[in-house]
């Protein structure tokens, strides 16, 4: 295996921005400390990415890193647009919302949808721009621990006058908790016990559902992702991390086991793993979790798409 494809290592972007876990304040990052992680794993591609990053007295230049993150996330948005990601989220959100409203579950009158690790907020901004959710009074919120990305998401929303908001903070805190949680490409960042801990945090009284999208592991993920990133992405960081993230993803089984054991209040399962009824895997699959009373109404609301849903348990 190529050293850059070793899924046991972190992504470069996981290390070059660090925040205090309590105050969320940005912390200085030593370039040589990040570099040594990839030197040890023999990942020369990552070392080259890090070597090219500007520094001041051995500390990575925060302004340059911020600019790089915004550029990289804009490139990632292009991929989301090519995959029609907004439409895919909307396809599943509709039956979830229908089930919440039909059962008069908490939030049925004033829903809050929270996108965890929203980056520059593509999904939330797309929902605000292209669906009637905001007009129906649904609160669309994007959250991220990276303040730069949140600033950029807010700027972009303002530029198009979109009815949504972005918050720098913890998505499960009492002030920010949601009735429906979304995320895209975030789950694989939680490794080991962190994955179970993440699901454990969903057991909030108001939370009714979660829809988590991530790459689906397959034999095509490595070479396919490499080729697509070479063709579509420009920054060395995006090319490295994009491929590695497609290889670090959790299997459907890992996700379902973690969700069912750590958030037993939800019926959870996978959605949309195959293209139509063929054995071909979709690039993204979705882990869906619903409060158990919502399940029958959700299935009804899915209509002809019910075939895309695996077992919810």
């Amino acid at each position, binding site marked *: 295996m190529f050293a850059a494809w070793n899924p046991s290592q972190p992504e470069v972007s996981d290390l070059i921005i660090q925040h205090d876990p309590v105050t969320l304040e940005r912390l200085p990052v030593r370039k040589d400390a990040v570099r040594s992680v990839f030197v040890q794993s023999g990942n020369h591609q990552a070392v080259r990415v890090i070597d090219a990053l500007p520094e001041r007295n051995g500390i990575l230049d925060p302004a340059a890193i911020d600019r790089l993150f915004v550029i990289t996330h804009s490139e990632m948005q292009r991929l989301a647009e090519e995959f029609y990601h907004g439409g*895919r989220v909307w396809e599943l959100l509709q039956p979830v919302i229908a089930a919440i409203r039909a059962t008069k579950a908490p939030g049925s009158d004033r829903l809050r949808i929270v996108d965890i690790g929203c980056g520059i907020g593509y999904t939330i901004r797309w929902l605000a721009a292209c669906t009637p959710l905001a007009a129906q009074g649904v609160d669309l919120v994007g959250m991220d621990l990276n303040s730069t990305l949140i600033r950029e998401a807010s*700027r972009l929303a303002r530029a198009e006058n979109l009815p949504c908001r972005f918050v720098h903070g913890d998505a499960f805190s009492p002030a920010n908790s949601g009735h429906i949680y979304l995320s895209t490409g975030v789950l694989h960042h939680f490794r080991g016990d962190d994955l179970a801990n993440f699901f454990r945090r969903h057991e909030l009284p108001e939370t009714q559902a979660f829809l988590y999208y991530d790459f689906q592991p397959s034999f095509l993920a490595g070479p396919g992702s490499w080729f697509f990133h070479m063709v579509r992405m420009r920054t060395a960081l995006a090319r490295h991390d994009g491929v590695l993230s497609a290889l670090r993803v959790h299997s459907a089984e890992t996700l379902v086991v973690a969700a069912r054991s750590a958030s037993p209040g939800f019926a959870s399962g996978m959605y949309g793993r195959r293209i139509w009824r063929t054995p071909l895997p979709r690039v993204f699959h979705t882990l869906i979790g619903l409060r158990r009373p919502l399940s029958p109404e959700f299935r009804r609301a899915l209509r002809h798409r019910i075939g895309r849903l695996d077992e919810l348990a």
Partner: protein
Amino acid sequence: MTLVVLYLLATVDGALCGFRAFAGRSALIHKRAYYSRALLIGAVAAQIASFFSLAVLLLAVVFSSHRAELRGDLESAAGRMLWVFLPYAAAVLFNLALRALPSTDIRAATSVMVLGPLSGLRPFVMIAGVLYGIRSSLLTETKLLGFFVLATMLLLESFLSRIASRRQLRELASAN
């Protein structure tokens, strides 16, 4: 006629290069105007490249001691290039047309499985087309002109990328 078809293909190629150069550099949701401008910039850049190619071609013909022979040689080389460029263009345009279908899976599949690989193949198709065109040319002038056109086509996308990158950095700087 052959030159007109090549010119039209160069214009479409330039417009699509413009699209690719600007894609992924604006994170707005509504980007119709942005992409229209990108297509236009690409098409205009293709006009400039075509103009230079035509100017060099005309100069070569004017100063040639065997004009009729060169003209014939150039036309047959251009005709052979179309055997490579036309199927490629047809594949690209057909898959772009497929994106009009109201299926997210089909639309996404055209990107992942066809348009992505086809844009990756573009430089190789350009090289193959020109080499095939000048392969059995009789005159050195034709071969040199072929390489000139090839260089222009290959430089077009990186030239447009540079413009798009500068614009993006300027916009980011003004936003902060």
